[in-house]
């Protein structure tokens, strides 16, 4: 039985988004695990160029307390 993996695609390229805003937390949360870790490119399928912008935006959002650095089960 052959395993067919779903084809990955860049979310930003599909939706023609060129810049990532750190204030758009709803969008950024798609690319973060429940723990709050940034998901790797091999899982999300984002292009290298957009992944760099995404990582910067997530880190900026964390700095200004819009996103959590960590989200452990004890806190919530």
């Amino acid at each position: 039985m052959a395993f067919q993996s779903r084809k990955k695609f860049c979310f930003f390229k599909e939706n023609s988004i060129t810049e990532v805003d750190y204030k758009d937390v709803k969008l950024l949360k798609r690319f973060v695990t429940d723990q709050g870790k940034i998901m790797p490119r091999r899982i999300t399928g984002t292009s290298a160029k957009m992944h760099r912008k995404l990582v910067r935006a997530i880190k900026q959002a964390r700095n200004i307390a819009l996103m959590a650095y960590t989200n452990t089960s004890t806190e919530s």
Partner: protein
Amino acid sequence: MRYYESLYIVNPNYEQERLDEVIKSVADKSIEYGFSIINHRVWGKKRLAYSIEKHKYGSFILLHFETELTENLERFERFMILQKPILRNQTVGLTIKPEAQVEEKSVNNLEQKETTEESSVVTETKEQSNVESEENSEEGLSVEEEKVVVTEEESAQNEETEETVELAIEEEATEEVQE
């Protein structure tokens, strides 16, 4: 010109007056450093992702400005850090010129005014139409009454069975005769 966006969190316990004072002090300082302000507005009171100085909420304030004096940015950063009511601040460079939202608000206000005027006109026309309908109803009351009587008779007939229908016809005939 280079464009920058500064987002800072003010103590959530501050009332509107004290918040305005903080905003004014930041605006004055930024003008002193030669920044031309494009936007300076309150983004809102939001829940922080993690507590800062034991505060779970914070008033977020957004400042868009443009400047060529990049050396003053460090001084501005220093000033923001030293302010006690400001819990956290972050200045980010922008590639595109931000849109001024103050003008949009005024435009929205104008639109709202226009809509209210339109709605008042609509209510006036409605009142007029109501008056007309009342006049019509006064004239046509007798006609409507007749119609209602006819429909009642019809409904009563539908409910009756075949046997009763025959009886009813006889009764009607007798009524007609009496009339």
